[in-house]
């Protein structure tokens, strides 16, 4: 019995391990080989140099990082705000929560197209502006001439699409906070903001940390939204990786881009782990 207890967990893990090794980790390792392979067959930085020299590399890097900074913090603030609001709502709580989480199931591709149809020249936003008297004829916002607006449009679509994820993690975290803390703070007469910053947020730290980690990784991978709304005007790292693979058939450069993405993911994750660390008592 005891023997089996020792072997059992490994037996249970075995199928998933075999699967992931074969279909996840080994292709992952292969990517390194592809990225560092030179044209002549040896290994070196050829692909990285080509990526570095490319017109779009720094633009894509900049766009990706800026999007991360524009999207993730705003999502966090909105999510905390929404979940605190939800705490005060008793009736229709379920319905409201369902509606708020709908975008969780919406693909980035569809989200990009939806927002394109709203923000485009003859879209709904301009119709509203027309009715309000801001504009007289279709105005073009999403073009290379308004890089900031283009960027904002992508950011809005991205926030809309993936806010639900952050929201869920935060709400779940809030539920773990015992009501007593809240009440204690009330007893001591703490104001709403004081309570938020002194009690709620510190207690939410683990949830905030995991929300930030997960969302940042996903934000770095932004692809379909940027392509659908920005076309070629807003290159991001993932779209460049795709282009180098699908259009220029250079797997080396594509893999180099992927490794840059990976590096950024790891840096951001380590950053959150470090700056938002909590005592390691909980299992």
């Amino acid at each position, binding site marked *: 019995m005891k023997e089996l207890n020792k072997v059992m967990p490994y037996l249970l893990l075995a199928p998933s391990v075999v699967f992931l090794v074969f279909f996840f980790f080994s292709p992952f390792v292969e990517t390194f080989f592809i990225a560092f392979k030179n044209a002549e067959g040896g290994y070196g930085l050829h692909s990285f140099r080509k990526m570095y020299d490319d017109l779009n590399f720094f633009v894509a890097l900049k766009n990706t990082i800026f999007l991360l900074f524009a999207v993730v913090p705003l999502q966090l603030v909105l999510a905390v705000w929404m979940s605190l609001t939800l705490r005060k709502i008793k009736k229709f709580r379920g319905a409201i929560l369902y509606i708020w989480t709908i975008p*969780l199931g919406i693909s980035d591709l569809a989200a990009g197209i939806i927002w394109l149809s709203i923000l485009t020249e003859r879209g709904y936003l301009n119709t509203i502006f027309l009715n309000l008297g801001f504009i007289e004829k279709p105005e073009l916002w999403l073009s290379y001439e308004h890089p900031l607006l283009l960027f904002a449009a992508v950011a809005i679509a991205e926030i809309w699409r993936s806010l639900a994820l952050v929201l869920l993690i935060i709400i779940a975290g809030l539920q773990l906070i015992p009501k007593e803390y809240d009440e204690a703070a009330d007893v001591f007469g703490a104001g709403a903001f004081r309570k938020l910053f002194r009690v709620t947020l510190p207690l939410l730290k683990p949830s905030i940390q995991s929300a930030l980690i997960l969302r940042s990784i996903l934000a770095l991978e932004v692809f379909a939204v940027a392509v659908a709304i920005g076309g070629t005007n807003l290159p991001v790292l993932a779209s460049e990786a795709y282009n180098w693979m699908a259009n220029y058939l250079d797997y080396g450069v594509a893999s180099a881009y992927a490794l840059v993405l990976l590096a950024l993911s790891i840096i951001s994750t380590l950053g959150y782990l470090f700056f938002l660390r909590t005592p390691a008592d909980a299992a």
Partner: protein
Amino acid sequence: MRKKAILYYGLGIFFCLSVLLPIYFLIVLSVSGRDAVYAWPKIFYVANLDWSMFRFFFEVEGVTRAMFNSVLVASLTVVFAIGLGTPAAYALARYNFFGKNFYRIAILFTRAFPVAILALPLTVRFINLGIYDTIWAVVIVHTALALPFSILIQSNLFQSVPKELEEAAWLLGCTKLQAFFKIMLPICMPSVAATAIFAFIISWNEVFAAAVLTVKNRTLTAFLISQISESPLFFQITGSFFLVIPTLFFIFIVRKYLFSLWGITNK
């Protein structure tokens, strides 16, 4: 107090509207016909119902097959993600063993990896296996994407079931396997189902791998992305409509479990 309630509900409704309006516009556009897509100024409601976009969409060859493939791929992904994930999740939840933390971290690590590049070396591997351009190729990649979620989510679900329940069953003479099927599974069934739907959504929405690994046996997303940049806006809108609508139902079904799915990620 009353004023505050109004404020909270006002905020609640405001956030609801910001989620729903874009989807509402999508639906209005989808059933208003081609001309409405290019119309200026836009009308905010369905002026006259026009199914021509749907007709066009379904007349395009490959659409129905792609939809069928999408459902099939997503269902198979669910089966594999649950089938491979449940034992692993149980092991994580109930056993202490050497390498447990390493396994956990390795699984978490899969999230930090850009999906796009996974498909690249796999293309070659699948060609050698002879399953390139079959739904199996897509199923495998989607399983690789959904499996980590399935494992982590389920292990937390299992952990939340008091161990005593199972132990009581053992004392009453159940084998471990029986205890698992008679105690754990019934308790966790709804949440496992939610995990399953989540895996379904992952697969349903995945674009890149599906597009790279298939040519003939496309899923709906792969079909759309291969056509989308060369198809008129109204076709893209109908395509999005069919991508979005099913997920409204899925999220509705799993709405109660979304927390147990996501709340646990901070462990």
